[in-house]
């Protein structure tokens, strides 16, 4: 918390400055934590990063059979490319959060023994999943070549889409890791929510093909993000207005989540 820790503008600015300063100071730790988690993840696993490629491929194959052969969904690009692109982006989101939700509690040892900004834990969970995401992109490129899906100039939007997606994921990871520290139920609740959430998002089918689900589905911020990936990579169009709204909301959401996290941080060691 800022020196005075109040809710005034001055206190707020002091806090934000402290938050950013700490991240710069401890950037080496963020790097090391991410390295640690990557190393541990693939140590003693023969396939190593192969798993980051293999799992979404298996899923794509399964869903291709279900949705392209049985349900016969119409998609603007061949279904396997459509589905893989969605699963690829979604898996980054889901695995970052799955990892992030337990990131504070599984490092209880460090949280209670050594001081450093605790944001490092959820942030490194996001970065680790981002590495898998990068590996998975090779498969997407392969599928696009196989199915002859061309890319266009709108691919230039890709970094912006990625940044919004990463920031959105980081904001949720901050909230979930903190909530799970106070209440371990969050971890279980998360598993339920994330599987339902996937089917309420345009991961495996375009949302405009689904009707009668109401406003809740339209408010789902993940749909514009997944759609934006397809727009800029597969369809060569700019992201739509819903994405712009989500991008703006993400910045605000991350700011509040981070501030909240920062102000409750001092309670972590005694509450874990």
């Amino acid at each position, binding site marked *: 918390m800022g020196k005075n820790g109040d809710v005034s503008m001055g206190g707020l600015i002091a806090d934000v400055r402290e938050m950013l300063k700490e991240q710069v100071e401890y950037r080496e730790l963020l790097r090391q934590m991410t*390295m640690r988690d990557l190393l541990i993840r693939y140590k003693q696993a023969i396939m190593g990063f192969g798993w980051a490629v293999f799992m979404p491929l298996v899923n794509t194959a399964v869903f291709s059979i279900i949705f392209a052969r049985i349900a016969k969904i119409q998609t603007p690009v061949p279904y396997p490319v459509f589905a893989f692109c969605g699963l690829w982006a979604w898996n980054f989101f889901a695995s970052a959060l799955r990892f992030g939700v337990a990131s504070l509690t599984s490092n209880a040892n460090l949280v209670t023994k050594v001081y450093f900004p605790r944001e490092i834990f959820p942030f490194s969970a996001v970065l680790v999943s981002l590495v898998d995401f990068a590996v998975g992109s090779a498969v997407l490129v392969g599928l696009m070549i196989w199915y002859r899906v061309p890319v266009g100039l709108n691919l230039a939007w890709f970094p912006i889409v990625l940044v919004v997606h990463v920031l959105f994921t980081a904001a949720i990871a901050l909230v979930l890791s903190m909530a799970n520290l106070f209440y371990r139920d969050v971890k279980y609740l998360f598993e339920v929510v994330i599987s339902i959430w996937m089917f309420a998002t345009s991961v495996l089918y375009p949302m405009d093909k689904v009707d009668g689900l109401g406003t809740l589905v339209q408010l789902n911020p993940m749909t514009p993000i997944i759609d934006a990936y397809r727009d800029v990579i597969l369809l060569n169009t700019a992201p739509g207005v819903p994405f712009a709204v989500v991008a703006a909301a993400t910045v605000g959401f991350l700011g509040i989540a981070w501030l909240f996290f920062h102000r409750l941080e001092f309670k972590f060691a005694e509450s874990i």
Partner: protein
Amino acid sequence: MDLRVAFDSVSKKFRRGERHDSLRDLVPAMAAAFLNRRRSSETLGDQEFWALRNVSFAVRAGEALGIIGPNGAGKSTSLKVLTKLLRPTTGSCMVHGRVGALIEVAAGFHPDLSGRENIYLQGAIMGMKRAEIAQRFDDIVDFAGVNAFVDTPVKRYSSGMNARLGFSIAAHLMPDVLIIDEVLSVGDMAFQQRCFDRMVEFKKQGIAIVLVSHNLQAVSRLCETAVYLASSVKASGPTIDVLDAYVRDSNKLEPTVDDGAIELRSIAFVSDGGPATTHRDVAPGAALKLRMEARSAHPQDDVTFGFEIYRSTDQLLVYNGHVHRPELGSPDDFNGEFHLDLAFRANLVRGHYYISFCILHNPTQAYLVQPRQVGTLAVAETRSRSGVADVDFSAALSLPVGTPARR
């Protein structure tokens, strides 16, 4: 000199049991924390207790402060406040400069990673930059003595190797303030000695040290000042005085039946500077005398005077001796007021000692005066000696007769 640590009337409140029992409690509590509105800090709620109460101390550059006290006295809590892990309920804690904490030195280690990977990880946890770690990497490995195992996963290390590596990383951090919790107990004797030497070196370089330890020997050797903590500060000041207070409290005994039959009125060293119960700067081998003024309620004959010297820092019994009253010859018995002189030679080496005295009634084996601490001694260092007794060691060098003298 510059102030490095200022602990100013710090109090810390803890709660027994769980903090929140349901989500219904959590939401208002989080909202309150977010808006930083807390309940009145000064009062204790149900289930709450003070782990620290109005604790103050300060450490300057190049100084070492020892924190001693029984288990649960708040020693670790105060270190957690110092390292920013806990925030004081009231009061303030200021630490200037980079803080190195030797608390659970291997906390950041991951068992599946190699020694090398863990050095970089742990270094980063302690706030070192990559270049700094790389530069000191060889020193760290050498100091820990794990050269042959740098690329072995830490899970295959012995617990001693683990702790040594942890300490070694922390010892190469070059902090401004070093906070140490009981780490001197890790590793073998040779390693402990190296750690100790390292801390002495740190002090010379102007690093401020806060040491928490039950090893009073280490506290007395390293720290000029100390704090005796039992939630609140029981004693603070020069290490010898604080150790005395702590040892005296730790040695309190239950009263026995006949205790009080003899009343000790005063007891003090007979010295040039007037009577005192603490004798500082005793030269090894000095002749000392304690004079006691007492009063007995009954005539006493068959009693034993017991005299013991303990080393304050580790409770080592250095000497135990006793005298039966009949061996003293006249007077046959004593009653009412009497004087007793206890004379001894301080054949001791550098350190802090206390003297325990008792009077035992032989026929009933009951204490007339319970064993109690009656005086303390600090033997000043004259030459480099350590150990338990001063045996007046010397060395002489000579050549066998007839050896031709060299040019």
